[in-house]
């Protein structure tokens, strides 16, 4: 097949193959890992299966003041296009991730309450490429029950 653009034939065929693939297929290969983390100066509570945040991740939050960052839960979320799937981080919060098709993904944080519909707390957008390159997208806030503590949802490209 002659090259129309001056590119090598193989490169042109690869480009065509890439453009013809549905976006959903591309994104579905990529997953987002979400870690619910508790920022506190308290030691790990007895009997709780929390783990300490790994050092590279701790480095990302080093500007914050807490001594300990306990990983409460880790979930992996697919990144579909158009129909996000909600994944529970705990009994009280959930996220879903959606490929917007414009290079960004939208991550939505929900508050869960028994007997009630999940309540959208915050949608944020982040570059899909950035997440694939290892960037961190973090949602955080004050722990409403403990004055000095905070919660973090750390989102990274799936491992």
């Amino acid at each position, binding site marked *: 097949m002659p090259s129309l653009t001056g590119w090598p034939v193989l490169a042109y065929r690869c480009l065509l193959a890439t453009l013809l693939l549905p976006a959903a297929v591309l994104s579905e290969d990529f997953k987002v890992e979400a870690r619910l983390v508790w920022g506190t100066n308290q030691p790990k509570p007895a009997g709780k299966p929390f783990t300490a945040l790994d050092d590279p991740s701790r480095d990302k939050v080093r500007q914050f003041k807490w001594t300990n960052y306990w990983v409460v839960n880790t979930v992996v979320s697919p990144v579909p296009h158009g129909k996000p799937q909600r994944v529970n981080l705990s009994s009280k919060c959930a996220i879903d991730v959606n490929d917007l098709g414009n290079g960004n993904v939208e991550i939505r944080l929900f508050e869960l309450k028994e007997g009630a519909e999940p309540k959208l707390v915050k949608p*944020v957008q982040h570059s899909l490429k950035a997440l694939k390159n290892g960037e961190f997208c973090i949602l*955080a806030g004050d722990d409403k029950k403990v004055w000095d503590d905070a919660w973090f949802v750390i989102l990274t490209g799936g491992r």
Partner: protein
Amino acid sequence: MTQISQTIMKTETCLEIQAYVDGELDASRRAVVERLCATDSEARQLSDGLKALRSAVRANEPEIHVPESREFYWSQIQRRMSAASATAPTTDTGAAWTQWMRWLVPMAGAAAVVSLLTLPGREGQTTTTLASMSPAPTYSAPASSVIYRSDTDGVTVHWIN
């Protein structure tokens, strides 16, 4: 000056004596502490010392006055009242950002720079610490938040108010 009590007492005992002085104990615990203070000189000294300190502090609350004239102080409040009634009761990310700056920029006058929340690889960006941030455009959302980003660290934080 009366210097009272030099001993190492269990913290729990000290706290209970404090609670007794503050009137926070029920009748049974109150009786226990009263017996302790009657028989233990150090417990009694702690109790007396706490009572004296408590009375002194309560009777001598520092006198502080507003450092502005009546008219000026009221004009500031009036201005805020007008602004508050004029704006819709939606989240004020501007004000929230101002307060956030106080968290990360303790020194007055320090600038904060936050890059836009988009693709990375904006070559030449030299944002190196979370302290050197600027406000980023926030997306409309039920909750207000402040965003800051470090290109060097490859991290973006959305702090939800």
